[in-house]
């Protein structure tokens, strides 16, 4: 293992390697033995509802949290035994802001460069480069406290890139941002991928954004339930999604089971299920629909999305899962009052 990579060149082909990684917080098993590898240059997405263990996993990879069991290496270095080496080679953008609002954008980035020991003569050109990329170079002298949420997130991304990390970790980089800013952040990620030799590891709970990743791992209740490219995952579903709106979901589910042998579920206030070739199913549905069954108000057929992938692996949509876990978490937080997050 040691000596398999040089310090300045010869990027290891595997950027992140995780084996049996576990983390327990008291009685709560936040991460239950995950296993995966991310290739150099890949954009790898971690998808799952809040509380699925994404942030805990990212924190272990960033050396912020010590794993309970298992091992992980980032940029060729072990996250427990070679913490410093890992830290020198990664960039981090957290979910919560970590900028100094009293300093200017430039001062924030300079501080980062000094903390990471970036060569003095390269600080300025590198700063110009990363700030230009996120469109903030002309605002470099503004105090960060005056920035909008989107601008701050963009600045954090720029800062995370200041020291040319091999792996950039983005924890929910687009959470709470307006659609336009979200899109531009994805543009930067695309640009980064083109220009720099960098691996990007990100977490998100926006299904549409996961489509941008080369590969995604779906995480639920501390475990990885699926891992592949978005296309493969969607193709693996093999069915289209049909959603029926009626006044009585339970009766509809019973009728579908009775007439078509379909196992449907309640989801987001409607009944939904997967069938092969959904368009052709709709006429059959109406032909065989009894007047005694609840009146159908609307039918919607869609190609499988990552949401469906998520549903087929976890049995609920990501939003439903979040509602459940939200309740769960509230209860837990009341018990603990403070302590380990997620």
């Amino acid at each position, binding site marked *: 293992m040691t000596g398999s990579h040089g310090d300045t060149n010869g990027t290891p082909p595997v950027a992140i390697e995780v084996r049996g990684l576990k983390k327990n917080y008291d009685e709560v098993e936040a991460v239950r033995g995950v296993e995966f590898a991310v290739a150099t240059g890949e954009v790898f997405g971690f998808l799952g509802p809040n509380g699925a263990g994404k942030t805990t996993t990212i924190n272990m990879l960033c*050396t912020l949290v010590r794993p309970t069991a298992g091992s992980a290496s980032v940029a060729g270095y072990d996250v427990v035994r070679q913490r410093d080496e890992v*830290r020198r080679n990664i960039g981090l953008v957290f979910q919560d802001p970590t*900028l100094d609002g009293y300093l200017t954008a430039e001062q924030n980035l300079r501080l980062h460069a000094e903390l*990471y*020991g970036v060569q003095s003569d390269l600080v300025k050109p*590198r700063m110009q480069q990363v700030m230009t990329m996120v469109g903030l170079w002309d605002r470099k002298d503004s105090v960060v406290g005056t920035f909008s949420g989107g601008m701050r997130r963009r600045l954090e991304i720029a800062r995370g890139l200041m020291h040319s990390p091999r792996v950039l970790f983005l924890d929910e980089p687009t959470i709470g941002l307006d659609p336009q800013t979200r899109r531009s952040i994805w543009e930067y990620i695309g640009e980064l991928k*083109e220009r720099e030799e960098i691996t990007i590891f990100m977490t998100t709970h926006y299904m549409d954004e996961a489509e941008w990743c080369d590969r995604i791992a779906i995480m639920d209740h501390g475990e990885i339930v699926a891992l592949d490219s978005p296309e493969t995952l969607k193709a693996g579903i093999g069915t289209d999604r049909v959603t029926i709106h009626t006044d009585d979901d339970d009766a509809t589910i019973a009728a579908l089971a009775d007439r078509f042998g379909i196992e449907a579920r309640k989801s987001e206030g409607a009944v939904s299920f997967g069938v092969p070739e959904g368009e052709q199913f709709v006429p059959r549905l109406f032909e065989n629909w009894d007047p005694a069954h609840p009146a159908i108000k609307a039918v919607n057929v869609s190609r499988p999305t990552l949401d469906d992938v998520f549903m087929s692996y976890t049995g609920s949509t990501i939003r439903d899962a979040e509602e459940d876990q939200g309740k769960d978490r509230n209860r837990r937080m009341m018990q603990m009052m403070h302590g380990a997050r997620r």
Partner: protein
Amino acid sequence: MSTTTEPRGPAGGGPGAGAATVEATPTPIVRVTVPKRSLASELRAIKIVWRREIIRYRSDRLRMVTTLVQPLLFLFVLGSGLQQLSAASTHGVNLKTFIYPGILCISVMFTGMFSAASIVWDREFGFLREMMVAPIRRSSIVIGKVIGGATVASFQGVIVIALAGFVGVPYAPLMIIGIFILQLLLAFTITAFGVMVAVRIKQMQSFMGVMQMIVMPMFFISGALFPVANLPGWLAVLNRLDPLTYAVDPMRRLVFNNLSISPQARAALDPGVTWFGWHVPALLEAGMIVALGLIMLGIAIWEFSSTE
């Protein structure tokens, strides 16, 4: 997409691979490499943490004013007011002159504590995380914070030193230098103490509460406002245990060395600190402040390093 996955194949290309990507892009990428951790990189980290404190202090004019209000209130209002009562027992010495060293100390103390509080702010607003994940030692963060806070606090001290003339303290160069050095030591120790407390505290309100609980008693017990001889037994014990005592006492001696007053006044107002009748020399007092500061810095580093 194709260009980025490429490095997997010709990975043997080693140094050439990096150069190829640079060529392919319109503007060359400025690539930096993060050096291995060394003493130099730690010193650089300490320096930037220190500088951040200075930058923040400079941009916060309000703080400069607010931390001065209380000491000045003590000095001019309390000093002038109580003068009416105490004129007989101060042997003709202005009370403001007498309490001046104490006020200087409390002023430095307030600022130092306030600077230390920034570690709690940083935790609350997330910035602490940015420093904690950097490839530097935790001790560098603490040392930078303490030196930064001490610098800010001693700057505040300089402002109070500048006011000496208003309370009948002459601007004698040697005395000024002596006072400056003493307040520098005090600033360091107080900030180290503040940081030691602050690394354990997660919320600003709690920190402020703790500070109130510690700073005011330390101030009142230290002898900033009264001579430390002939105190009731319990107060004498507390007074000798209060670290601030050993900053106020040598400072007062320096001031009184430069006043032309009667020996009786000198004896009454500047009796010096005694341990079981033994006069504690000023140098030992200064040494104690430094030693205490170093011990607390050590504890702060240890505590900070063992947090998650």
